[in-house]
């Protein structure tokens, strides 16, 4: 409780060079090479083949429908309220777009959760993390890349990925063959015009908020005083309000509408949890990297311990949301809902299903349980990487089954593309980090952060 003992806070200037630069470039090259090999190895289907697969799919699809999630046969009747969607094999290149979408959306989530991380520190009046705010601030700069990829994929391959976009272009009316009352009923929301407005405006507003908050923090370094701090609190509160509503809309658009017939109210919070825990894992990785290279002098084991606690807690939070969605759908066993899990319970997704729980729950939960592990850089790095792979897999599992179903597989492309984006992310964020001072030296709570102690 003393004010007397004040540490002198030095500004640090990070230089992006050496191993980190080599690694990011290597990831970019290897990722690109793998992706190219992957693209060339995707099985091309001739027209005849495509027809064949489509037929096969129809059969397997029927099989899927006939059994509900408990494996109990569901009665079929001609007067079924909801027609079974007949799936056609997607063009071979859809897989490339899907990979772009998965990684682009993941980037977007991580970047916006980076903004949310520092906004949260301001609105919660928290001091402990003020020394590491520059990291999420740098992460937020990559937001446009994610947003542009998602938008581009929607524009270029929306028809192939999103069932409803394809349907919209058919202009079917009631009574015509193939008319889908559910999709017709959704057209007030799921229509290209409205979706484009959201897809452009939401990330744009996020980006502007992030940029503005980052500038306030950087100006504070030069000028000091409380003006920037107080302004940051107000802007952060406005951002948080907007963020809560807008991330819901974005998750409905980008991920939920892939399974256009299906819906779940918890889905938006679940998407947020995925991005949030991943963003914390990345912040932890950056802190550990910077510490190892002699930067962030005032950040200690105490901060790292707290980041470890966050990874632990929010991995459980993610699992809580996962269970809430799964348990309720499993329990009520309404075919329209349970189809979602039934699809994911079959090959080729069954492995991803188990990976999801293993990487995102079991490993963080069991490994980060003890205090010592949360203070151990090697163990934290391992868990953070598991979380990142796990949540990439989570998004894969949200998007792939609804879009290309049985055509999905983990190949060179699925490994190469995340590596490429990891390299891009490292290169981009570390470059952003090197351009500004690494420590918010005049943050009013910087002394609190420098003296941070987790207590017992």
């Amino acid at each position, binding site marked *: *409780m*003393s*004010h007397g*003992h004040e540490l002198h806070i030095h500004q640090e200037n990070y230089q992006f060079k050496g191993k980190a630069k080599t690694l990011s470039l290597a990831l970019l090259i290897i990722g690109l090479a793998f992706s190219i090999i992957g693209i060339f190895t995707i099985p091309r289907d001739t027209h005849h083949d495509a027809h064949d697969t489509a037929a096969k799919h129809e059969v397997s699809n029927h099989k899927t429908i006939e059994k509900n999630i408990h494996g109990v046969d569901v009665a079929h009747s001609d007067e079924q309220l909801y027609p079974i969607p007949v799936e056609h094999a997607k063009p071979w290149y859809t897989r490339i777009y899907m990979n772009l979408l998965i990684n682009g959306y993941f980037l977007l989530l991580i970047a916006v959760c980076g903004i949310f991380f520092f906004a949260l520190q301001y609105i919660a*009046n928290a*001091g402990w993390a003020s020394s590491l705010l520059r990291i999420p601030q740098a992460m937020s700069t990559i937001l446009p890349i994610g947003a542009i990829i998602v938008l581009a994929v929607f524009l270029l391959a929306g028809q192939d990925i999103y069932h409803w976009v394809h349907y919209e272009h058919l202009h079917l009316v009631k009574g015509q063959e193939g008319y889908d*009352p*559910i*999709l017709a*009923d*959704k057209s*007030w*929301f799921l229509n290209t015009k409205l979706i484009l407005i959201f897809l452009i405006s939401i990330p744009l507003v996020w980006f502007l908020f992030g940029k503005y908050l980052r500038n306030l923090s950087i100006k504070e370094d030069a000028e000091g005083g*409380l003006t920037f701090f107080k302004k940051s609190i107000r802007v952060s*509160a406005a951002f948080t*309000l907007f963020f*809560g*509503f807008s991330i*819901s809309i974005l998750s*409905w658009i980008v991920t939920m509408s892939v399974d256009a*017939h299906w*819906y*779940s*109210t*918890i*889905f*938006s*919070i679940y998407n947020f949890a995925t991005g949030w825990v991943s963003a914390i894992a990345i912040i932890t990785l950056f802190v550990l990297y910077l510490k190892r290279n002699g930067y962030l002098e005032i950040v200690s084991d105490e901060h790292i311990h707290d980041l470890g606690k966050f990874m632990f807690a929010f991995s*459980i939070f993610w699992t*809580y*949301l996962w269970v*809430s*969605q799964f*348990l*309720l*759908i499993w*329990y*009520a066993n*309404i075919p*329209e809902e349970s189809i979602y899990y039934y699809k994911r319970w079959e090959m080729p997704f069954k492995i991803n299903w188990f990976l999801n729980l293993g990487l995102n729950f079991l490993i963080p939960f069991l490994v980060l349980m003890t205090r010592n592990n949360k203070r151990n850089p090697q163990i934290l790095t391992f868990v953070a990487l598991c979380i990142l792979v796990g949540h990439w897999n989570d998004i894969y599992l949200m998007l792939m089954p609804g879009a290309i179903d049985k055509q999905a597989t983990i190949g060179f492309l699925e490994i190469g593309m995340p590596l490429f984006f990891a390299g891009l992310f490292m290169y981009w964020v570390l470059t952003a980090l090197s351009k500004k001072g690494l420590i918010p030296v005049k943050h*009013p*709570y910087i*002394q*609190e952060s*420098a*003296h941070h*102690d987790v*207590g*017992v």
Partner: protein
Amino acid sequence: MIHDSAIRTQLVTGEKTLHDVTTEICRPIENKPSTSWKVGFVLSVIFLGILGLTLAITTLFGIGTWGLNKTVQWGWDITNFVFWVGIGHAGTLISAILLLFRQKWRMSINRSAEAMTIFAVMCAAVFPLFHMGRLWVGMYWVLPLPNAFGSLWGNFHSPLLWDVFAITTYFSVSLVFWYLGLIPDIATVRDRATTAGRKFWYNFFSMGWTGSVRTWNRYEVVSLILAGISTPLVLSVHTIVSMDFATSVVPGWHTTIFPPYFVAGAIFSGFGMVLTLLVIVRKVMNYQDYITIGHLEAMCKVVMLTGTMVGLAYITEFFVAAYSGVVYEQYAFINRATGPYWWAYWSMMTCNLIAPQVFWFKWARTTPWFIFMLSIVVNVGMWFERFVIIVTSLHREYLPSGWVMYSPTIIEIGIFVGTFGLFFTCFFLFSKFLPVINMSEVKSILKNRE
């Protein structure tokens, strides 16, 4: 070493010394109760009497004395049950989650908030227990021998049974946590005791507390462990309450957002009740220096945050129902907003989503009488939320032949009003016999500890 920035507001104002804290917080225990206390207590006991009477009538004449019918099988009972359970959540959040987040402002409000939790859970328990009708038969599954009443065990597939476990766990952990925090303070009262009776009882309940470094060390470790155990409880209890509804296939009930949405709502309503109580407590007991405007402001921010989260959930539900393409879901929500119970729905929306938005203004967050009014609005709104969920979803069946209206009988109203009697009787007794503010923790954050 802990360092506090100079721009942080002081948590305890009025330049208190350690001795000031002890004398001021022990004052109500060591002196004769004030007139306002007596009046309040007698009123509460009268309401408690109403509870006793209406429960006796329910037990003697059966559930037929309630307004439930063939379609609306859950009405006021479960509305009030969820209402009270929800209120308890603020206490646990303050004592556990805010401890983990190192929020020191919790220290002068945690004791009363935890007490509130325990009393609220007691009030909640009244409803499902008496809804069983023949309470003594319902108790049978606890000791299921001889097996004369059907199945040997309770139905473990039923969320109602999960509720029994969740709430009893919650109650016991909260009670232990609360009592643990009380021990050093009870010892303080013991050490200052001037009468034999006080000496005996406070000695008994202080469990031989010595205040040595070793005991303090263990006390802090146990507090942290209990906080760790309580944190998932904050989420689990209302999650399971929400599953009482969400595992069903009733339109408006079966929706996956229910677990987190109920938890947010519970914290929201709990903070509403904490504010109602503390605005009065700080005024009547003259604790303005301990429960400062800063404390009220922080709580108002939590109310605004959780209120908006609940509002987001309402909007999500409404949106997804519209989006789902399922006519039953769509009808359930249109019926909520425009059907015969429209007034309940719009009360809920106004009180829970719109009203807390005034806390964006600093004046609203720092004016006690206004906060008090708004906390009542929050309580009312959250009661309506449960009423809306339960009654409007039930009163329209899949078959129109089952469409009915529900209104409570005088007995049901009596039980609900009576639970406030139970709650406030307990709270008045607590404020007379136990330190309302955690003395030992507050002492640790005083500026001048010399």
